[in-house]
C-alpha cells in the first residue's frame, strides 16, 4: 500500500462553523488510481470534507496537500485547473442549457480563443470548439448520454441529471474526481449503471476517485478503501472487507444486528 504514490493528503483537518465542530483532526491519504469511499451517518462531515478538498470551505486548522502542494487556501476555480473536479449532491448544472452545452461549458478552462474569433467562429475558435466537442463526445459515449444530448437539463429525469453532472465533472479532465452521493435517490438499475460508469472511468483514466455514498452495497462493491467518519472524526480506515467487520463502525453506522 505505502509504496503507492500519494495523490492527495488531508492532514489534521479541522473545520468549525461557529461552535459547531464539523471536522476534527481528520487525516487520510488518497493514492494514485484508487476508489476511496467516505462513509458515515448523516451529519458526520462527509460533504464538509469534500468541500474542503474542492475549496468551498477552508479548514481552520490542518492542511490539504495535492500533489505535494498545499492547496488549503486556494480558491475552487484554481483547484479545478489543477485537476480537482467534483459532482454535487444536489446537482449543480445550467438547467436551461442542453446536456451537451453543459458539458461544453465545463470545457471553458481549455478554451483560449478571443471574442472576435469566437464571434465569427473561424480559425482558432473553430479548431478549439471541434477539438473540445470531440472530448465531450467521448464522455457522452462513455456515459451513454447520446439520447439526451440535445435535451434541456431541466427536463431530464433525476437519474440522468446526475449523469450529466458526472459528465460535467469529467469534461474538466480531472486528475482527482470527487463524487458527492452519486447514487442518492436512484433505483437499482440506475445505481448499477452509475457503479459501472464509475468503474469505467477509473479504468480508463486511472485517476483516484473519492466517493461519498450511503449505499453500503455499492460502496463495498466498488471501493478499494473506505474512510469512516462519525461526528466529524475519523472512526476507521481500511479495505471494505475489514470495515464491514469493524466493531466501532458497525456500532456507529451499519447498525447492530
Amino acid at each position, binding site marked *: 500500500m505505502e509504496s503507492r504514490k500519494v495523490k492527495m493528503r488531508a492532514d489534521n483537518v479541522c473545520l468549525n462553523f461557529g461552535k459547531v465542530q464539523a471536522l476534527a483532526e481528520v487525516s487520510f491519504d488518497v493514492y494514485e488510481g484508487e476508489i476511496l469511499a467516505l462513509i458515515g451517518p448523516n451529519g458526520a462531515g462527509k460533504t464538509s470534507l469534500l468541500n474542503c478538498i474542492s475549496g468551498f470551505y477552508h479548514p481552520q486548522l490542518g492542511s490539504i496537500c495535492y500533489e505535494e502542494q498545499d492547496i488549503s487556501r486556494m480558491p475552487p476555480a484554481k483547484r479545478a485547473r489543477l485537476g480537482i473536479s467534483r459532482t454535487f449532491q444536489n446537482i449543480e448544472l445550467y438547467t436551461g442549457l442542453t446536456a451537451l452545452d453543459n458539458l461544453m461549458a465545463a470545457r471553458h478552462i481549455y478554451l483560449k480563443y478571443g471574442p472576435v474569433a469566437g464571434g465569427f467562429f473561424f480559425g482558432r475558435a473553430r479548431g478549439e470548439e471541434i477539438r473540445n*466537442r*470531440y472530448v465531450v463526445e467521448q464522455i457522452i*459515449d462513455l456515459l*451513454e448520454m447520446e*439520447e439526451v444530448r*440535445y435535451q434541456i437539463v431541466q427536463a431530464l429525469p433525476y437519474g440522468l441529471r446526475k449523469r450529466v453532472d458526472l459528465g460535467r465533472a469529467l469534461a474538466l479532465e480531472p486528475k482527482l474526481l470527487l463524487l458527492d452521493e452519486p447514487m442518492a435517490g436512484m433505483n*437499482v*438499475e440506475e445505481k448499477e449503471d452509475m457503479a459501472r460508469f464509475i*468503474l*469505467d472511468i477509473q479504468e480508463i483514466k486511472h485517476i483516484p476517485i473519492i466517493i461519498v455514498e450511503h449505499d453500503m452495497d455499492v460502496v463495498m462493491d466498488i471501493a478499494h478503501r473506505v474512510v469512516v467518519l462519525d461526528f466529524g472524526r475519523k472512526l476507521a480506515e481500511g479495505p471494505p472487507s475489514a470495515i464491514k467487520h469493524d466493531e466501532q463502525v458497525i456500532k456507529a453506522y451499519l447498525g447492530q444486528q
Partner: protein
Amino acid sequence: MSSAPERRALERGRVPAQGNADTLPKLLVRNYRKYGTDNVAIREKNMGIWESYTWADYYETVRALSLAFLELGLRPGDRVSIIGENKPHVYWFEVAAQAAGAAVVGIFADCTPPEVQHYAGHSGSRFAVCQDQEQVDKFLEIKDKLPDLEKIIYWDPKGLWKYHDPDLLSFDRMLEIGRPAAQKNPDLFEECVANTKADDLAVFFYTSGTTGLPKAGMVTHRSLIGMAEGLNEVNDFQENEEYLSFLPIAWIAEQLFVACTLIYAMRTNFPEKPETVQQNIREIGPEVVFFGPRLWEGLIRMIQVKMLDSSWMHRLFFNLALKIGYKMADLRMKGLRPSSSQALLFNLAHRLVFRNLRDNLGLLKTRVGYSGGGAVSPDVLRYFLAIGVTVKQLYGSSEVGIVTCHRDDHIKPETCGPPMSDVEIKVSAEGEIIIKTPNLFSGYFKQPEKTAEKVIDGWYYTEDFGHIDKDGQLVVMDRMEDLVTIAGGKKFSPQFCEIRLRFSPFIKDVLAVGRPDQYFIGALINIELDNVGHWAETNKIPYTTFTDLSQKPQIIELIRKEIAKINEILPEHSQIRKFINLHKEFDPDEAEMTRTRKLRRTFVEDRFKDLLDGIFGETREVEVVSQITYRDGRTGTTKSTITVNQV
C-alpha cells in the same frame, strides 16, 4: 392492375441484375468494382456525427475481417454467431464470414445467456461476434458449455479493457490480422469469394419459439437473393436509396435488406443507439423503412398523445386534415383517382399538417414502409396512408421468405396483399395456408424430422389459418392452434381481436381468450403506461405504480369505453364482454413474449390462469401474488387485488 414498377419489372423479365454475382460476398465485390469510392454504402452516426463508408471501405473491411477469420481457422460450412444491435460491424462481420464460406447465426441483442447458449450451442458456432461488454459477458458466462466455440470477437471495447481471456479478440485485432494477410496474399479474398456458391448456407434463423425450443431454419444465398428480387419487382429499389437499418439482425426481414442493399446498391443507415432512432430517422429521411407492427402502432400512439397535448386550434386542423386524408386513403386503397377538388384538399392538408407531421416522424421522404413479422391492425395501415405514408404489409417467414406484399395502388389493409410473382399459395381443407416458393429454406438444422413435418411435397405448411379473397389477396386470420371453437360452435380468432384493440392509444397489449365451454370472450389488457399515465394526469387522477394506475376505477372506465368502441366492429361472437387490466406489463424477460414481441399465448394463459378463471367465473375480484424477476436477476413477489370488469 399492376403498378408501374411492377410493369417495368415484368417488361424486363426477371433479369438477374447482378449477373453472375449470386452470393452476398460476390455482390459486394461487384459493387466495389462498380462504385469504388464514388458511392456511399453505409452511414453510421457515431460520436454525434454521421460517418460514411463507401463501397470501397465496405469491401476493404470485409476483406480484412474475412482473411482474419481464415487465419483463425474458419472453414467453409462453419457457423458464426453474431449478437448485437444494428451497427455497420454486423454487416461487415456477416459478409466476411460468408465470404469465408460460413453461415451466420443472428442472435437478438436482448437474449439471456441460456438463450444465447441454445443458439450458439445448437448451431455449433465456432466464433461468436459480440457488440460490447454486455454481450461478451454473456458468452464468457456460458463459454464452458459451448464445446465448439473457439473465439469471442467484439467491436466496442468499452469496459473490456481489463478483460484478459485468451479467447477474446477485438475488432481492431481482427483488422491487424487481416490487413497484412491481404497484403501478403492479395488474391486470396476474391478467390474465396469466387468459391462461394448460391446454394451455400448464408444465414440460420432461429424460430421465435412460440412453441417449444427454437429450431434453426437454414437459408441459402439463392433464397435470400430470390426474396430480394421478388420484393424489388413490387417496389423497384433504386441505387443509393436510403434504408434505415433498425430491425434485429436475427430476423429474416433485416437479412432480406442486407441482401437488397447489396443487390441494388442502396445505402444503409445505422442509428446511433436504439434509443436515438426517433432523432436519427429525422436526420436521415429514409426512403425505405421496415418496422414491426409494434413500432408502427407506437408511432401512431405518439401522434395521438401529442395531439391531446396541443391546443384546440391544432387539434381542429389536425382532425380536419385527417378526415381528408382518410378519404384520400380510401380512394388510394381501391386504386381510384381522386377528383380535382379532392386532390386540392389533400394537397392543402398535406401542406398545412401532414408535411410537418411526417417531417417530425422522419417519414417525409419515405417512399415505402413495410410492416411484417406479425399481424398489424388495418387501422394502422389506413392511418399512415391517410397522412401520406404508404405502409405495406408483408407476409412471410424465415422458412419461405416473403410470400405476399401489398401493391402500390391496391392496398387492402385487412389483407397481406397478393402473392409474389413466383410464389404459389393454397389453402388446405382445414383452412391452413400452404406455400410453394423457389426461395424455400433448406430445412431445420440437425432436425430433418421437423423439416419433414413442415414441408410436404414441396409445400410448406405454415400452421396459419386464412383464406384468399376474391381479389387474390391473402388474408391471414391467426395461428391454427390459437383458433378456438367457443360454445355455440363459432370459431374465434384471438389475433383478429387483439390487433384491433391495440390500435387504441391506451392499450399496449391484449390477450383475448375464448373457451370452448363459454359463450363470450375475455381479455387481459396491458395498459399503455405513458398514455394512460398522461391521461390520468390531465384528469387529475393521482397514482403511484403501474398496478395502482391500472386498477383505478376511472382507468377501468376508460379502457371499458375503448373496448366498447372496438366491439362495434368485431363480429358478435368475438366481442369482448369481460376484461381485466393487468397489474404488470407483458415482458420478454419473463418469457411472456418472444424476442420479437409476440405473446407466448399458452404460457401467458397458464401463468394468468387465476385471472382468466376469474373472468369466466362469477368473481368480481382476484388476489394475485406475482413473481417478479428484476433486470439484475433478483426476484421478488408482489400482492395486489385485481378487479374483473364487464364491458
